[in-house]
């Protein structure tokens, strides 16, 4: 009886998707729900939980360090977008050129950094950007007669190190995305354009860019997400969550500081909800602008 029920064509699909439903309910809906609830509470573990309405949120608005972390995450995200979309796109077009020698080798070399753990990569970059005159970047600057720089103590220089790390790890990956996008553009488009006497730039503007749009949207979406949720890179680069003047503090870093390091669970939950709303809004706007919701596309 039960067997026949389970094996019926009506029930089978639910059995197939059941693992997802369970995981979704237990590990997403429930935690998300309790996150929302917690954000309206003052929670001291082991003691009575207090309902405090919107207090956590109003406090967040006046919390300079939180605003600093939002600023940092936003700037980081924007910078990664500005670097890690045009540059890989250009590289993909160049490397896809039929005059390219050693294409496979270069493809692999550029991609390889993505395989290293952030823990290892972050530590290596921390040491490379060390402030001693003997550390890699400073000794390099020394060849040009530039004084040693305290990279990880300044806002701008600290971000240079962060972005260098991000570029190093993701340049090759994003290039591969664009390469796979390029593969789907038929050669005849370019041949036809050549016959019409189009220049290389014109071909890039008129054929490559528009036809790479789906790939660009994909890369944009994951970059926005990754940029806003960045934490471990900063944690490793500053060897802890407390960077000087909080120059490397991100939203998730602040969530971690409040929730795990200071046990202010309610306040941390509010930070998380703000991040969620932020990420959703930006992605929705982005998707709306790029026309993903239009049926024609």
């Amino acid at each position: 009886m039960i067997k026949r029920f389970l094996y019926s064509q009506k029930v089978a699909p639910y059995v197939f998707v059941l693992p997802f439903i369970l995981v979704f309910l237990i590990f997403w809906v429930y935690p998300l729900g309790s996150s929302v609830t917690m954000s309206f509470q003052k929670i001291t573990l082991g003691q009575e939980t207090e309902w405090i309405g919107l207090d956590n949120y109003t406090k967040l608005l006046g919390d300079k360090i939180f605003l600093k972390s939002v600023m940092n995450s936003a700037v980081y995200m924007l910078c990664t977008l500005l670097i890690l979309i045009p540059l890989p796109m250009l590289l993909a077009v160049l490397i896809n050129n039929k005059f390219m020698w050693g294409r496979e080798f270069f493809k692999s070399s550029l991609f390889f950094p993505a395989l290293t753990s952030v823990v290892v990569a972050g530590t290596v970059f921390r040491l490379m950007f060390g402030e001693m005159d003997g550390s890699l970047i400073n000794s390099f600057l020394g060849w040009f007669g530039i004084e040693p720089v305290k990279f990880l103590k300044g806002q701008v220089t600290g971000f240079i190190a962060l972005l260098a790390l991000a570029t190093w790890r993701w340049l090759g990956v994003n290039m591969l995305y664009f390469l796979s996008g390029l593969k789907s553009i038929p050669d005849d488009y370019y041949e036809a354009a050549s016959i019409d006497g189009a220049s290389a730039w014109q071909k890039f503007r008129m054929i490559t860019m528009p036809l790479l749009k789906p790939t660009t949207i994909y890369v944009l979406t994951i970059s926005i997400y990754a940029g806003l949720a960045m934490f471990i890179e900063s944690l490793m680069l500053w060897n802890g969550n407390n960077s000087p003047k909080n120059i490397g503090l991100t939203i998730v870093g602040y969530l971690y500081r409040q929730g795990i390091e200071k046990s202010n669970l309610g306040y941390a939950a509010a930070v998380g909800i703000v991040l969620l709303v932020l990420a959703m809004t930006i992605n929705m706007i982005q998707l709306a602008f790029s026309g993903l919701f239009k049926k024609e596309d």
Partner: protein
Amino acid sequence: MKREAALNLKESTATRSKKEISLKILLFVLFAILCGIILIPFYAIALASFKPGEELIRYGLNLKFDLSVMSLDNYTYLFTGQHAYFTWFFNSLLLTVVQVALTLLVSATVAYGFSAYEFKGKNFLFICVLLIMMVPFEILLLPLYTLIFNLGMMNTYSAIVLPGIASAATIFFFRQYLSGIPKEIIAAGRVDGASEYGIYLRLILPIMKPSFAAMAILNGMNSWNNFLWPFMVLSDERKYTLPIGLKTLLTPYGNNYDLLIVGSFFSIIPIFILFVAFQKYFIDGMTAGAVKG
């Protein structure tokens, strides 16, 4: 394109090929420089793995090739010393294999459910899949932490594997892949009297094999390098994975830099070997998730 050029511009073929060669050289040099820069950190850490930790602390990470301070001591220590490095290494390996195998199996099953059937609530559920892809996992850290704690799953690998077992991105990819498989196969299976599950196990899974490689690599990379969540869940040193173990060496209360650097470098080597051997799969796997034009 070449034919066109040959037809129309016969006389200028010579200048053309000259131009081509200079273009080739230019491109090659450009990429060679770029790769050089990209590979510097690897070279630096490889070099540092032969130097004593105090050298690194004193002069920072640099490219000085100085045979007088270089030795194989760190490697001797790595392979013979008293530390948990290879326990971590093995744990990472085990966890990656377990996680990838289970995630692929479960996600493929779910994806099949979405692709082969029409059922009530399907669209809603699939929107949930897409939604998960947009929620930053990090905001769930705290409630998930308390949940795992209350379930008594602290310090277990189940706590790491289970939340990600139905991976949204993987489901999404498999569904795309399955949509290219003709429905007739399923219908034929039913005619032959196979059960719904028999069809999936015997007919569909074998067809999906090629897509497994790509997803195995993508999930494997994520799992091998996964840090934050395992870091919060695991507290027993003997259960640490490699990234967590390496991070614990970064404390000021122990002279661990020798092991840290050589261990970091050594952790890259197996991935490197795998990567060289299965390059094509890696690159296909990475791009598999991208939307096709």
